[in-house]
Each structure stands twice: as C-alpha cells, then as structure tokens.
C-alpha cells in the first residue's frame, strides 16, 4: 500500500487522538460511553484515511469531486455540531453558576437582617 503524505499525517494525528482519548479515559475524565464513542470515531477516521475508496460510491450522487473534499465537509460538520453543543453547555453552566452565586449573595442580606431582629 502506497501512502500519500497527507494520509500519513492524518494517520499520525488520529493515533495521537486515540492515545489522548485513552489517557483521559484512564484518568477517569471520560466515561466508558464517551471513550467508546470517540474510539469508534477515530477508528472510522483511520479506516477512511487508509481506504478512501470506500466513499467512492457516494461521491457522485453528492456531486463532490474528490474524496478529500467529502472528508473535509464531514469534518466541518462534526466540528460544527461539537462547537454548538459546547456553546449550549457553556451557556447553561454560566447561567447556573451566576444563579448560584447571586442567590448565595442575596441570602447574606437576609441572614444579616434576621440576626439584627
């Protein structure tokens, strides 16, 4: 099998990400489900990098010229989904923290007043 430079680079990156995934799982930062999901994702990426011809049957109907272009589109879609998910979760956490801190602060004034009474 003859590998192109870009394929080699993609493989190195994917193996590195598999390693990062594994380390985070071992540290307990990822649940078994998360670990499984990301492993499947990166193994899928490795498979497509080694055998890009798998995608050939869907390239024509989608009017995409090259397999690489399709991979890029898929990567952007995955990134967009992850970014949006992060954005929503971040906003939710911000709101919860704000609510928590503000409620706790306002309760100070109530405590002070009830002590004075």
């Amino acid at each position, binding site marked *: 099998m003859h590998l192109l430079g870009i394929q080699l680079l993609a493989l190195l990156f994917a193996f590195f990400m598999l390693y990062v995934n594994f380390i985070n799982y071992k540290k307990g930062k990822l649940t078994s489900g998360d670990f499984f999901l990301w492993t499947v994702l990166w193994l899928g990426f490795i498979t497509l990098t080694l055998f890009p011809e798998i995608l050939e049957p869907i390239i024509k109907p989608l009017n995409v010229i090259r397999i690489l272009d399709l991979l890029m589109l898929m990567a952007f879609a995955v990134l967009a989904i992850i970014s949006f998910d992060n954005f929503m979760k971040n906003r939710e956490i911000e709101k919860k923290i*704000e609510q928590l*801190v*503000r409620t706790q602060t306002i309760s100070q*004034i109530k405590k*002070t007043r009830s002590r004075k009474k």
Partner: protein
Amino acid sequence: MKSKNNIFIVIPAYNEAARIKDVLKKTLKFGYKIIVVDDGSSDKTAQNATMHGVVPLRHKINLGKGAALKTGCEAAFDIGATSIIVLDADGQHDPKFIPRFADSLRSNDIVFGKRKLVGKAPLVRLIGNKFGASLIHLMFGIYRQDLLCGYLAFNKDAYKKIEWKSPRYGIESEVVARTGKNKLQYAEVEISTIYIDKHKGVSILDALAILPSVFKWRFD
C-alpha cells in the same frame, strides 16, 4: 411617595479598593441607604466598603457588572427599596448629581445620566457611541447620545421591565433598548464627565461583543 428611605443607591464594584472609600464618603452625605456589591474582587474592595450605612454584599467569584448590579437591585427591593440609583465605584460618577436623579424619578420610570462627550471622550469612543446609539434608535425607537453611561435610576416597576440579561458589560445599552421596547417614561440628567482610567470600562472589544446582542434584545 418616594422618600429617602425607599430610594437605595446600588454600587457594583470590582477591584476598586483604592477608590471605593472616597466614592462612599461622598455618597453617604445624601443620606440614602447604599448597597455595594463586590463582584469577587481580588483586592480589599469589600473591606474598604464596610462603613456605617453601607450594606456590603460579595460575589464569591467575578460574574461581571450586569450580574453584580442585578444582585444589588434584587437585594435592595427585598429589603424595601422602591427605587434605585446606580453609580460606578471608580469615581467616574460624581455623587453630587444623586438629588437630581431622585427628583427626576418622581415623574419618570427611568432616569439616565448624560455626559458631555464631545471634546472629552476619546474619538473611538465617540464613534462607537454614535454608531450604537443609531442602531438602538433604529431598532427600539429610543435615541440616547450617551449610550454607555452607567449612572442611572429606575423604580421597581420599571426594573421588572428592563431586567437585563447581560452579565457583563452591555447592561447600559440593554437598559436603553428595553426602555425603548417597553415605551417607558424616561428623562436625562446632565452629569459631569470624569475619565479616570482610559483602559477601564467598556473597551472596543466589549462594544463589538455587545453588537450581536442588540438583535437578540429585539426578539427576546
């Protein structure tokens, strides 16, 4: 009837240990109850704000001016305020104008401070203010030349309508937008302009971050 007992002064403060005492001394002269919300400062703001007649509150972490102000307002309404006057802790707002705000509140829902910007504010701030003011005018039908002035006053009913969502900077513009949106009765009080530190307050980046929110407020 608004008396001094039910008008509260709310001062959000973040790392203002050096200036807060002076601001409080000048403000206390007018005899209103004062709530200072220390927004998770890393200096001695909270300690320096502890003096007779002042209710100090403290956020455990820094949430931003909008959140601090909201905490202060809710605490004030909880303990009997019917109106609130807001001023900054950095000395940019001269407390001598407080009586004018209180007077104007008798016949208005909300009172905005208005600085004379031309000739005093940095050019970039003038342009930003003009652009923001025009955009808010276009979308909410209210034109305020000094969009970013945080010296303001409002009553309890108005607060319910203008209750801002911006946790950080942007609350001044949001209050103007919601005033226009809810067609509240407002007035402006001319105040003197004191630029303490050109790196404090709303930066160009903050202003750019506020921009998309303007559209959000329209459809909230």
